[in-house]
């Protein structure tokens, strides 16, 4: 009888151990990683073409008015037009993006990561799944800007 009680105590402690382990894994998945954000990937897809995307990568944020409304799914290269094609997934809740929206690639902070910023236009027609954003502005490349600045300084003097 004593033996049975001890065995049961061990079983309860092992059960507790497993439970705590899985709670820790769950905590890491939901609270620490981006899984909670990735779960609602049921939004819709938009594409945009840029002549230069800088260091934009998959999973970079897409934001409107500074609020994240989606993520970049893929960045690929179109070998016919020599442009970069950015595929974005926009949250389903944000379904009122006008079709004359302007897509910019900005940098968060001076050396931060790059993100796509959408500036809504005035059209009453909304973009739907698979549509392409027509108006885009490429990433600002720091080296190019410095080069242009030096060039204009030299030209001005």
């Amino acid at each position: 009888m004593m033996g049975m009680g001890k065995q049961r105590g061990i079983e309860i402690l092992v059960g507790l151990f497993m439970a705590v382990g899985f709670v820790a894994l769950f905590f890491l998945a939901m609270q620490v990683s981006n899984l909670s954000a990735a779960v609602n990937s049921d939004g819709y897809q938009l594409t945009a073409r840029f002549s230069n995307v800088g260091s934009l990568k998959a999973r970079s944020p897409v934001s409107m008015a500074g609020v994240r409304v989606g993520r970049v799914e893929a960045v690929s290269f179109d070998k016919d037009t020599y442009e970069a094609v950015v595929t974005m997934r926009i949250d389903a809740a944000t379904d009122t993006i006008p079709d004359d929206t302007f897509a910019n690639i900005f940098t968060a902070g001076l050396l931060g990561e790059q993100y796509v910023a959408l500036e809504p236009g005035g059209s009453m027609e909304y973009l739907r799944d698979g549509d392409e954003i027509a108006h885009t502005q490429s990433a600002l490349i720091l080296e190019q800007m410095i080069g242009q600045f030096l060039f204009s300084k030299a030209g001005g003097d």
Partner: protein
Amino acid sequence: MILEGLARLGRSGLGTLERLGRAHLLLAGMVLGIGAVLRRPGLLIAQLFNIGVLSMLIIGVSGLFVGMVLGLQGYYVLAQFGAAESLGVMVAASLVRELGPVVTALLVAGRAGSALTAEIGLMKATEQLSGLEMMAVDPVRRILTPRFFGGVLAMPLLAAMFSAVGVLGGYFVGVGLLGVDSGSFWSQMQSKVDFHEDIVNGVIKSVVFGVVVTWIALFQGHDSVPTSEGVSRATTRSVVHAALAVLGLDFVLTALMFGE
């Protein structure tokens, strides 16, 4: 003279190969013995208690302090660049990717691996293993296999606890003591730590470490010279080899997983 040296080199080389062969046969025997474990889960539960439950305290305390130190050191460095809000990313990524699996494996090798080696070595020295064999009970299936799977199962769970407690420790120091904004601590962490790339790879790492640490511990015990000195040497070797294997494998796994 030269021939004698060559012969000695050859002997040690052959001895090493033989030990490697025995170690792999033992591993194969334990992996194939999974059926025996599934038929008698009580044996596995007892080992999960020995390896998992009894390691929880040291894992929890170490995780907390490692996380707190990361929070403190990370804050001092990041604050110089005005990027203290990235503290959460730094703490979580370094814990989940590296420190959680590796430190847990080292602690388990010291806390549970050495105990496994001593236990098996003493069983061998007191001829309990031969006794089992004489009763037609396979000691690999009955004694070693449940310990092996206990270690393999316990390691990822312990590593997850280590990382989770560490993140909370970093939160306590960063947000609680040093005044980093709580919202950006979590949101930056969530946006930069990827579930598949970081968490899943960390779990894969700790499963590999679980296999390696328990395998080395059990093999050293099973292969020990059956004397008190032999068991003590095997215990030392078990911890040293396990630590070296974990650190070396960690580099290889990191290079394979996180290289772009």
